[in-house]
């Protein structure tokens, strides 16, 4: 379990607090999506997960290990993997397999074990065929998968994704989301920042951040049912919810706490049958 207790953080000593008393617990194997307007503290939050940032006040623990203790950092960074927004600034090796080996090499594992982990990670990210390819010749989607494989080679229990589908075309974004879903099914805890509400509704839990605090926390249905609160901070609702709200306003008897396409189709089919 990852636990945040009253975490405060600011980048500049006299600057605005990026996190203002964040308390949150993330359970093992949980799929949490983090949403909120730009500059609300989402990235600052996830960088606390593997001790890249340390709380000025409060504490963060990962499976009982306090991030304030420097001797815990190596262990914490194997427990929590981090996939950054821009894979170009995350990939260290020149070829795919070199990059995936970077983490295990830092853990000082024996060469045979490193190679085993590299093969395993490439297979899990479904890019085994790219192992010898030069990073500069890969597509954006492939680079994103290399970044994920690099993290998987550390065999983490949790992975934090900072907008993993940003700048990707729909097909590449779907491929990345499929891999994330597969990892969730394998039991890895997923903490996922997104601005795409269609992705947010797929999570077990949605956490809404605003100005450095946890603004809302609940299941997708609970969160997207709070239309007025979300509108206050300019968060767009999922498209299906927006359609149902408009139908409701036009006088049709539909539920508006629906977040996925299948349920929305069921509602509309019900209306057609009644008519």
């Amino acid at each position, binding site marked *: 379990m990852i636990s945040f207790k009253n975490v405060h953080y600011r980048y500049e000593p006299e600057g605005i607090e990026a996190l203002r008393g964040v308390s949150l617990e993330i359970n093992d194997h949980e799929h949490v999506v983090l949403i909120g307007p730009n500059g609300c503290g989402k990235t600052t939050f996830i960088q606390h997960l593997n001790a890249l940032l340390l709380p000025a006040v409060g504490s963060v623990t990962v499976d009982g290990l306090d991030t304030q203790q420097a001797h815990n950092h190596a262990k914490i960074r*194997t427990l929590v993997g981090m996939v*950054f927004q821009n894979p170009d*600034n995350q990939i*260290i090796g*020149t*070829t795919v397999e*070199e990059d995936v080996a970077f983490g295990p*090499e830092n853990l000082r594992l024996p060469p045979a074990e490193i190679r085993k982990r590299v093969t395993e990670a490439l297979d899990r990210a479904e890019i085994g065929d790219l192992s*010898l390819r030069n990073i500069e010749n890969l597509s954006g989607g492939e680079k994103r998968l290399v970044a994920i494989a690099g993290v998987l080679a550390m065999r983490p229990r949790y992975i934090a994704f900072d907008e993993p589908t940003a700048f990707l075309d729909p097909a590449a974004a779907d491929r990345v989301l499929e891999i994330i879903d597969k990892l969730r099914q394998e039991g890895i805890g997923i903490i996922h920042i997104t601005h795409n509400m269609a992705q947010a509704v797929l999570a077990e839990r949605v956490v809404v951040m605003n100005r450095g605090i946890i603004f809302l926390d609940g299941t997708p249905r609970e969160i997207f049912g709070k239309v007025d609160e979300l509108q206050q901070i300019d968060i767009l609702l999922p498209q299906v919810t927006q359609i149902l709200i408009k139908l409701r306003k036009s006088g049709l008897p539909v539920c508006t706490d629906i977040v996925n396409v299948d349920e929305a189709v069921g509602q509309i089919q019900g209306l057609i049958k009644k008519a």
Partner: protein
Amino acid sequence: MYDTGTFIAGQSLIYKLDPRVKLAFTVTLSIFILWASPLPILFLGVILLLTALTNGITLRTVGQSVKPLLLFIILIFLAHALFASEVEGALFVSYLGISLGGIQGGFIAVWRFLCLIVAAVLLTMTTAPSRLVAAIKYFLHPLKFLRVPVDDIAVMITLALRMMPALLLQKKKIEKAQMARGGELRRFGLWVRAKYFLSLVLGVLLGTFRRADELALAMEARAYARGERTSAVELKIRRVDYLAILLFCLMIIIFMALNLFLS
């Protein structure tokens, strides 16, 4: 897109050689290229080129590696042509003091330089960067006793190899962004071009610093800490390496004899 010196995966014999052997060959060849007399170097250059061509390196790839150094190559040629120590034979352009001997010297110097480039391209394009870094680390290993941070140097080389093509790509992107806003360099005079060049350099530098910052964070996130690391690469000298060493030594002896005989 293959940038200068970028590794291209392949299966030929040269790929199978131990990177330490290849690195030692390249260093030996470089010394020989700089030291030997012109005629053996001419033959050696042809052999190097044939080796490159038979190992999947095309003339186009070699050309791509030479292109960024073209200005430097012209300068080398001119330096020899204009400032030949002894003006041999008839003066070619008398008022500039260019002689046929100077031009010949220029061609030889350029040929030596091209040989060095082909040798370097052969090494870097047929050796995965991690294997090359492992070989450098192996040769630097004795310096550990003098407390030289060999592991950190190896990571620095890895990052430099990774970032060089990335920086070239960034330069091209900024260039295009400037062109999109009317900054077509070729259309303007020297002063305007110099100003655009400065803004280009600043753009690349700023981008590089931002990138370095994020890269450092990403390295930390993957448990990087200064000091000792292990490597996925296990270096092993095999039969093919011994055979290559034997052939290489034979070739060097022949060229040494040729050098002695022809000079």
